[in-house]
Every structure is written in C-alpha cells, then in structure tokens.
C-alpha cells in the first residue's frame, strides 16, 4: 500500500516493508551490529535519511490512522442508523397490533349493544380487525428476533388471542339463542383483552421502541464527530510538525506533496464531519420530533379505542357499568394533553393541521359521549343506545369516533412518513463517506511518502 513509484524510474521500497528491504542506499556512517533490530533502528535514527524514512513512516501512519478512525466512526453511525431504520417498521407494526386489538374489542362490545342480530358491518369490522391482528402477530413473531424480552409478550399474545376470540364467539352464540349468559362471556372477553392481551401488545411495542431509541441515541451521539475532529487535528499537527522538521533539516520551505496529502486528508475529514453533523440533525428531528409524535399519537389511538369500548360496556352494564365510565374518563382525560404535545413536536405543516383537526374531532366525539351519558343517567336508555349504536357504524357516536380516529390515524401516518424521510435523509448524508475517507487517507499517506522520498533522494 505504501510502495511509491518515483519519477526516476527506480522503485524504492519505503514504509514498514521498505524498511526491511531497503538496501544500504543511505550509506550509514555508524553501522550497528548486523542482524539486530536495535542496531538497524540506531542506524536509522543516527542518519538524516534514516530519520527521514522514520518520519515519513510516522506521517503516513498518522494519515492512514486518521482515515481509519473516521471510517470507523462513519461505520458505527451507519450501523446505528440502520438499527433505527430496521426497528421502525417493527415499532409501527407493534403499534398497529396494539390499536387493532383495542379496536376489535371496542367493536365487539359495541356490536352487542343494540339487541337482536348484530349489524353486519360491525361484525365484518371485528373480523377484519382480528385477521389483521393475527397477521401482525405472525409478522412480529417472525421479525422480532430472539430474546426473552419479545418471547414473553409474543407467547401471551399467541395464546390469549384465540381464547379471546373464542369468548367473543361464545358470547355471540349465547346471544343468538337469547341467553343472557352471553353478556358474561363478553365481559370476560373484555377483561382478558384489557388485563392480559393489550398489556402484552404494549410490552412488545415497548421492546421495539427501546431498540429504536437505543439506535437513535447512538445515531446522534457526539463521540463520533469528536473522533473525526480529533483525527483532523492529529493530521494537522503532524503535517505542520513534519514541515517544520523538514524546513530545519533541508531548508525547503514547502513540501508540496506532503501539504497536498495533509490538505486532502483534512478536506475529507471536514466533509465527513459536515456529513455527520447533518445526519445528526436529521436524526434529532426524526427522534425528538417525528418519533415523539408517532409515540404520542399511537398512545392516543389505543387509549381512545379503550375508551370507546368502555362507552359500550357502560351501557351494557345497564346501570351497573359505573366502573367502565370511570375507566372511560381515565382513558380520555390525558388525550388532549397528548394531542397538544404531538402538535408541539410535529414537523410538517400537514401533520400540524391534522393533529389540530383530531383535537377538535375529539371534542365532537366527547360531546356525543356526554349526550349518551346524560340520556342514560336520565333514564332514557333507549335514546342512549340509539346514540351509541344506532344503525351500526352509522350511529352518532360511532361516526364521531371514526372521524376522530381518521384524523389521528392520518396524523400518525404523516408523523411516520416524516420520521422515515428524516432517517433516510440522514442515511444519505453518510453515503460514501466511509469509503471516500479510506481512499483519500491512502492517497494522503502516499503523497506524504512521496514528498519525503524526494528529500531522501537528495542524499544519494
């Protein structure tokens, strides 16, 4: 790698390999004992050409090492970005699983409210939610990788989801025969969902979120940039030092090759530093803004579906569902704050607008919910049920809720899109930097060696 073809047409080995093969071209004045390395070193340190060779070697090594350090920093950073990019779809899927399950339960309970045979569109929605959940679960099992952290929740989800579906279908079968025990099966199903299945889905999601956040932290740590800056400083110091030494020993003001080599290395390191900084900024936007928004909106969706289920269960309780209404309040109380935070961190104008619309759609839904509660509490149960379930998915409550969820879902998509585009942009900022650094550092080391060789040749 450090062999250099010199204009004179004579190949002269330099560098580490050269050091052992160079013939006595320098004409040592104080030859040491032949064969001993200590003697050879003395031979090099006691003559100017020898010292020149050692210095050439040192400078080339520093240049090459600076390139290697920069390359390592860029590689580490790329790995971190890749980790984030790989974790992101898993987080999205885990979120979708969480939301789909909560939605399935909300739909199942709502379906039972009206009496009689359930509306076909509601049943279809429940079945498609369950199918989606099963598919997401199978995907998650395949792609989550090994580890007890994911194995536990995955096992719980795989075991309990069929149990849940069985309970809902038993409730449905009893209901179709006019047996009130159906309501008890439905309560048990909802309890299983709330106490076991949803917590497992949330746990799975948090494992992937943790992986993503770990990658995210590594993708914008300052150590990598510091490494590159230190490498640049080392190149500059060594180059200036070498030039000064050469000036004293050889009275040459400038060694053009050495200066060019150092300049190239510094330029490459500077470009790398700018790239890292740029990527860091993209990662910060992606992590602290877009992903924070994704996280907040996902929480909003899941909590909202739990609340929607509570609304139905409160009515199904026929006056005995007070605990569900309390849980409804627990679920919806933080929603406004979560949406306000999501608005504060949102990046794109589209997302800001959608989050704002979601916040007002939430108020519309809550107004319908209050109307349901006041009708029910005022003894007008039939009116309350009409608002809550009406003509299936067309009821006031279901419509207002769907409008709200559509906005949250759109905002979530926008935030996810922002996140992905910032991660991709950051990745582009790193593209080619590693290889470029290695090539330029090699060239810089070669130039340095060439520059020194010019001086060494003057001793012939």
């Amino acid at each position, binding site marked *: 790698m450090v062999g250099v073809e010199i204009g004179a047409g004579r190949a002269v080995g330099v560098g580490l390999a050269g050091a052992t093969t160079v013939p006595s071209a320098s004409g040592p004045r104080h030859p040491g004992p032949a064969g001993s390395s200590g003697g050879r070193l003395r031979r090099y340190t006691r003559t100017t050409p020898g010292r020149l060779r050692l210095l050439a070697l040192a400078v080339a090594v520093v240049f090459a090492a600076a390139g290697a350090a920069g390359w390592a920093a860029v590689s580490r950073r790329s790995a971190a970005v890749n980790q984030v990019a790989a974790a992101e779809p898993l987080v999205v899927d885990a979120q979708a699983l969480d939301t789909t399950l909560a939605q399935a339960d909300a739909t199942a309970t709502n379906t039972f*409210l*009206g*009496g*009689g045979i359930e509306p076909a569109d509601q049943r279809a929605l429940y079945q498609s939610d369950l199918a989606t959940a099963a598919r997401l679960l199978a995907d998650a099992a395949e792609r989550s990788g090994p580890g007890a952290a994911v194995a536990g929740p995955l096992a719980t989800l795989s075991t309990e989801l069929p149990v849940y579906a069985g309970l809902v279908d038993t409730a449905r079968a*009893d*209901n*179709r*025969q*006019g*047996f*009130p*025990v*159906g*309501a*008890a*099966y439905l*309560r*048990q199903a909802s*309890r299983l969902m*709330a*106490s076991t299945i949803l917590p497992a889905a949330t746990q799975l999601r948090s494992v992937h979120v943790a992986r993503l956040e770990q990658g995210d932290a590594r993708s914008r740590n300052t150590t990598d940039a510091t490494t590159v800056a230190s490498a640049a400083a080392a190149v500059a110091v060594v180059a200036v030092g070498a030039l000064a030494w050469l000036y004293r020993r050889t009275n040459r003001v400038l060694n053009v090759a050495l200066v060019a080599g150092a300049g190239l290395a510094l330029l490459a390191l500077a470009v790398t530093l700018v790239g890292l900084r740029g990527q860091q900024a993209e990662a910060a936007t992606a992590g602290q803004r877009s992903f924070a928004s994704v996280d907040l909106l996902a929480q909003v969706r899941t909590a909202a579906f739990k609340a929607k289920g509570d609304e139905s*269960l409160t009515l199904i*309780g*026929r*006056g*005995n*569902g*007070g*605990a*569900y209404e*309390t*849980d409804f309040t*627990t679920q919806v109380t933080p929603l406004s704050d979560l949406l306000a935070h999501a608005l504060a961190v949102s990046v794109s104008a589209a997302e800001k607008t959608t989050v704002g619309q979601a916040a007002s759609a939430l108020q519309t839904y809550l107004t319908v919910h209050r109307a349901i509660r006041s009708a029910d509490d005022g*003894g007008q*149960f039939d009116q309350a*049920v009409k608002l809550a379930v009406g003509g299936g998915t067309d009821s006031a409550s279901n419509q207002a809720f769907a409008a709200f969820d559509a906005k949250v879902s759109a905002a979530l998509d926008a935030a996810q899109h922002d996140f992905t585009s910032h991660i991709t942009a950051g990745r582009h900022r790193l593209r080619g930097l590693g290889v470029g650094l290695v090539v330029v550092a090699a060239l810089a080391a070669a130039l340095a060696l060439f520059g020194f060789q010019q001086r060494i040749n003057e001793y012939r």
Partner: protein
Amino acid sequence: MILAVALVAGACSSSHHAGGSAVAAPATVAPPTTAAAPTPDCGDPTASSRPSGPLPTPGDMPAGSYMRTIQDRGRLIAGVSPDTLLFGSVNPFTAQFEGFDVDVVKAIAKAIFGDTSKVEYTAVTNAQRIPDVQAGSVDLVAHTMTINCARRQMVDFSSVYFDAGQKVLVRRDSTAQSVNDLGGKKVCAPLGTTSIDNLGRVPTHPVVVGVADETDCLVAFQQGTVDAISTDDTVLEGMAAQDPYAKVIGPRFTDEPYGIAVNLSHPEFTRFINGVLEQMRSDGSWAALYTKWLGRFGPTPAPPPASYKD
C-alpha cells in the same frame, strides 16, 4: 392459607380497576364469609308493614308521600338483575329487561302511574343491592333478594312475594345427589348473597368460589373452572335453561323468602308495595306471573301469604 392467598389475588385484581364490581375478575376465588356476623334476632324477618287501606288512584299519589316523589319524577327507578334468566335479565333480542321480578316492578309502576312503561331499570349486582337502596340511587330493588334479620337492619322489605330455596347445579353426568356430596369440589356462588354464606355452613366443606355476577358462575361452570353452582333454585333453573348439559339436583337445603328492598326512610312506600302485592295475590295476577315464567317447572303453587308486624 389457600383462602388467604385467593383473597389477596382477588383484592389485587379488583383494585387494579376503578373499584367497580363490573370489571372485577370473573373467576375470582374468594373465601366464604367464614365468620358470619352475629345475626340479630328480629323475630319473624318476613313480617312487613301492613298496607294502609286501599291503594290510591294511579297518577294521584298522596301529597308528601314517597310515591308522590316518584310520580312527580315521572319514572320509577328499579334495581333489577341484568342476567338472572326468568327473574331479571336483559333479553338479547329486544335489549329490554324481563322476568318475574321485572313484572312485579311493572305492577308497582302501574299502581303509581297507571302505566307499566314508566320505569327506569338499573342493573345491580348482588353485592350492590343493599348499598344502592341505602344510597337512594334506586327506589327499590327487586332482585331475587332473600329477607333476613341481618339485612333488615339496613333496608326495609316488602312482604314475601316468592318462596325460593337453595339447591345445586351440576353437570348432567354428575352422580351427586345433594350439596353434601360436593365435599372438596369447587362450588360457585355470587358474592354478597345468602347463598355463599349458606355454602360456608355445608358440613362436607365444598371449596367455595365467589364471583361478582351470578352469571359469571355459569361461565366458570361451562369453562370447567368450577364443578357446581349453588344458589337459589329459581336462579339455577334459569341457568339450566341456558345449558342443556347442566341439571339442578337435591332438595332445597335452605328457605329463601324473596322481598322487595326499600329504603328505611319511607315506610309508606313499603306499605304501598305491600298493597300492590296483596292485590296481585288476590286477583290472580301473581299466579299468572308464576305460570308465565316458571310454569314449565311444575304446577303453579298458591302465592306465599303475607306476614305483617303492623
């Protein structure tokens, strides 16, 4: 020791939610009330207040009476069971409450308003019956409720409107003849009932499993979590009607006289209800109700006679 553990588990799972029985775990194993509170002696617990003369004209309740308050409100608020087939349950087809208890409530509404539809039904769990009457969130509770001295300390009761007794429901292939053959078996009963207290006194010591809603017992039974259910025969017949693989066995091992629970602070309402019940006994509407809901289990008996303390 086992009971203690079960109690802790039950406490944890229910405290996880907002303290409501509606979201408490279904198969919560709870101990029977081993140390039953010393039952105060009240003489004949079924002795109620005598009706004060003929009933007032519907829609014209006496001023200052609690019935007037109900009339002015425009609806009677009644606590009933949401899932006790035959007595009080929500019909899945119509989403309306129906059953023997519900029809008695309708008769009371008819006496107040001249209209059986002016009722707001509210589902109450067994354990919530007394607290709801005491809090005044309902005007009355008609929910397969046994009259006894301990409960009389807390609420007022109408005269007896139904005579029930505790039996056991087992799988159709069970060889058990009575509750005494269930020693060591898991037997389910709803919390806050005389049934669960009575089970604790069965000499062969079945393992008592308590749940919030009595229908949760049927779920646990169908899922194989418990071997049997023991509560009033009336309730058990309703469960057996929903499960052809279940049968009700044995003689009644307790007497459970049902009364309508009313707040102690307005005895005139109890007298009024007793007047309605008296009318139902004499005009054949009680017998008609029995035939309508329970006729398939045997001949219609004479209505339980009222006992009054004046």
